[in-house]
């Protein structure tokens, strides 16, 4: 590929890396990644993917920017309160990098629309941080064999895992069914340190870029845990469940499930 003068300048720091080069940058420019949610986690993921030059970034979100989001959802700003988050993210990312095309999907993800939406992308990033969506995205990605980088944050903690269907465990290998309502904390009630979403979201972005380039060791079969208070980073092995209902040898889940929302989707 022939880079323009602007691209040579813009991506120079990538091109310099032995693991990237012009060839790697070309892969990044040709990649198509979709973000589930343009909120706390989605914001930094999208920002760094746009900076890196991911050519097509899909954003699935049908919420509007609210004041309470701005403590952490850095793709948005004060002037955009009331604007649809997907549109706000599009403006932010395309302004940072003109090579990036943001495709907005201004709808709520359900079993009816998810397959059609993710089909056009190579990699899916889950920043939704709520259980029904997590399972929906997991199952859809396993069924379509899409790489999925999934994360969750809570108060001062975060965790990230990369799912490569067929090669490693999926989310259901770990938690076959969603925990009962009230048994798991929700961000809304518990609070979240803004910068924690920044760190975790950026880690998700690095996992995406590593997957695009095929470099380094992905968090495949590994759950990365971070606690901001004691600054511990730990990795826990996640075994692949041969009897996993969706990615196992004899899958029992063949259709997508819309679990009931037991808390608000805002995060």
């Amino acid at each position, binding site marked *: 590929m022939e880079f323009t003068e602007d691209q040579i300048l813009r991506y120079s720091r990538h091109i310099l890396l032995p693991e990237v080069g012009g060839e790697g940058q070309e892969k990044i420019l040709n990649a198509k990644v979709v973000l589930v949610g343009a909120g706390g986690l989605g914001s930094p993921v999208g920002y760094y993917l746009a900076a890196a030059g991911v050519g097509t970034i899909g954003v699935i979100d049908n919420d509007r920017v609210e004041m309470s989001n701005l403590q952490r959802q850095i793709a948005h700003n004060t002037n955009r309160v009331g604007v649809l988050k997907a549109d706000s993210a599009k403006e932010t990312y395309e302004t940072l990098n003109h090579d990036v095309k943001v495709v907005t999907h201004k709808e709520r993800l359900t079993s009816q629309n998810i397959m059609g939406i993710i089909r056009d992308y190579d990699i899916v990033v889950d920043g939704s941080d709520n259980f029904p969506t997590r399972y929906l995205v997991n199952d859809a990605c396993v069924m379509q064999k899409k790489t999925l980088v999934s994360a969750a944050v809570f108060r001062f903690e975060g965790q990230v895992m990369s799912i490569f269907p067929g090669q490693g465990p999926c989310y259901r290998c770990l*938690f076959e069914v969603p925990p009962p309502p009230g048994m798991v904390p929700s961000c809304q009630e518990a609070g979240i340190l803004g910068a924690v979403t920044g760190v975790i979201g950026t880690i998700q972005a690095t996992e995406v870029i590593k997957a695009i380039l095929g470099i380094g060791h992905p968090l495949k079969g590994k759950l990365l845990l971070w606690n901001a208070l004691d600054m511990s980073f730990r990795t*826990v092995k996640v*075994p692949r469940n041969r009897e996993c209902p969706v990615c196992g040898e004899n899958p029992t889940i063949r259709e997508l499930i819309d679990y009931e929302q037991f808390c608000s989707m805002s995060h």
Partner: protein
Amino acid sequence: MQLAITKADLQTITDHCMKGLPNEACGMLGGKDGRVGKVYCLTNAKPGPDYYEMDAEEQFRVMKDLRGQGLDLVGLFHSHPTGQAYPSSVDVAQAYWPGTELPNYPDAVYVIVSLMDRTKPVARGFSIEEGKVNEVSLVVIE
């Protein structure tokens, strides 16, 4: 399925968990036929407010002691200083998985003590196997 435990033993567990704050505390439970007979308070080898690992040496000594006393390993306990009394993703990932090199405690009941309310610790029991979490009632006796 249920796990019976005396009030005194439950207090021992809770005290050990409170002492471990702000980090997670852990231990093992010996007994027979679904009833806790002996509580072993272990050291958290990798302490964190959201993480624990039982010291391998200590685990070995506990298993030896159980054998000597003719007891089975009926459960494992740990605390969640700021979380609910429910297995976290880490708890599930590190519980019994057949065919992996993880510790071999297939029938153990995982007792989790939530210290979200320091004045009212909550303990619940669970069976965790390969991604399946089922609650096991803790029956406090005597």
